[in-house]
């Protein structure tokens, strides 16, 4: 066995590197004018989070973070941004027109932001809670994750699945409305096309 200090020093340094990277990248996400850069910075931030998971001795969660968030979900984000070809935001134009930048929404946003800050301060100062390393490698092994997911939390797991299924069906219905109308034959207004 090595000296524990020797073990933890590089880990501490790595923790601060990954942590700082995640925070800076997340801040830059909202500071960009070009949405493609925002998406890329968000992916970088996910990568840093995945590094933090590795430091927590949870390689499975780290890899899933990359596969699901950075790999699958962000590709869809990038798709949408690229296909819409969203132009760089124009501030002056936005200030006049954009509904989210009118007084009312701005005040509402400020209230929400203040509430978030209060919650964060409360959560950080509350103390208690469980901190420190996870007991018994509960998230380290795939078998342990599977067992707790399908035995202890099977109800929550199924509920989440149904929720996602409902969202998916809804999306399909919304997307196929046009197709259904077009297929309506001669009865619809566009039937004679």
């Amino acid at each position, binding site marked *: 066995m090595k000296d524990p200090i020797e073990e933890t020093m590089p880990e501490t340094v790595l923790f601060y590197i990954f942590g700082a990277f995640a925070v800076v990248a997340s801040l830059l996400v909202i500071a960009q004018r070009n949405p*493609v850069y925002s998406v*890329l910075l968000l*992916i970088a931030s996910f990568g840093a989070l995945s590094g933090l998971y590795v430091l927590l001795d949870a*390689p*499975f969660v780290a*890899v*899933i973070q*990359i*596969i699901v968030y*950075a*790999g*699958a979900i962000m*590709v869809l984000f*990038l*798709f949408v941004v*690229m*296909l819409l070809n969203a132009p760089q935001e124009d501030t002056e134009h936005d200030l006049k027109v954009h509904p989210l930048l009118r007084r009312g929404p701005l005040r509402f946003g400020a209230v929400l932001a203040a509430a978030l800050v209060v919650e964060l301060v409360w959560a950080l100062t509350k103390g208690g809670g469980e901190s420190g390393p996870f007991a018994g490698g509960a998230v380290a092994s*795939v078998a342990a994750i599977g067992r707790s997911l399908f035995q202890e939390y099977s109800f929550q797991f199924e509920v989440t699945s149904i929720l996602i299924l409902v969202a998916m069906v809804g999306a399909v219905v919304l997307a196929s409305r046009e197709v259904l109308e077009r297929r309506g034959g001669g009865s619809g207004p566009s039937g004679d096309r």
Partner: protein
Amino acid sequence: MTPLLIAQIGLTLFVFVMLLSSAAVMVYMERKVAAALQQRIGPSLVGPKGLLQPLADIIKLMFKEELRPAASDWIIFALAPMIAATCAFAAFAVVPFGADTTLFGLVPEGLRLQVADVNVAILVVFAIASMGVYGIVLAGWSSNSKYSLLGGLRSSAQMISYELSYGLALASVLLIANSLSLTDIVNRQAGTWWQVIPRWYVFLQPLGFVIYMIAGIAETNRAPFDFPEAEQELVAGYHTEYSSMRFAMFFMAEYINMVTVAAVATDLYLGGWHGPFLPESLGWIWFLVKVGAILFFYVWMRWTLPRYRYDQLMSFGWKVLLPLAVVNLLVTAAGVLYFGL
């Protein structure tokens, strides 16, 4: 610095250099096999039997002018080939390619012939492959050209569609092997059934192997699934606007991805470095032979089959390959549960 650490660093550099040169070897092999299939001679002038042709190609690429479209997004335009090449190299890091060795007694403990032994190795390969899509999508978008954009979009749609079947084929192997570590999976395939048939998973998972190979071809954007660069429709697809070394990086990434897919297929289905006649310590020869055979198969496919139509590719992926992969997974799960394979 222990001898083991030095050996490990040496091994990492060795793998890096081997991957770099594998791209050159693949280019030569591709051209020679293509020529043979079309009754031509192929490269024959540079060096004996044209063996130095890849070197000449590299030198030509290095001295080409680096072009950049005026209306492109220069940061992402420069970043995209780097992402593609980095992901291609990184994925191979978790692939084991031989049994533990002591390098003729130079290292006290056994040195594992693998850059990084991760216990979720398969998922790492999968994750890095899914990150490789970004290189292509961003190249298409940042070039600010319609051919590039269409190539990039097609490529990412194709990779997302085939990743599902790819992942399900992998999951079936995981069920049988009961491990996510590639080294464990290879070691479970040691030995033979009835002294004749090697215990390779390809015999337990024939359908899974076929699905993996098809999805692997689609993942690496090779013909007959090479829509991202369908030259008759899209000039050169996502790398239309790239030249010189930036183009070379995409080119290299494609070949290295092929090598990785072939190496992972060898580890998962063909028993990795296990084989008859050779002692365990020379298993890497078997590994090279198997990877070479799969790569030859790839090249053979490319020059034999015509390109599919894009909608055929998508409906094949979602309506044929994915249901087959799901059925394969269910049958495998039932087999493991009731017969304890």
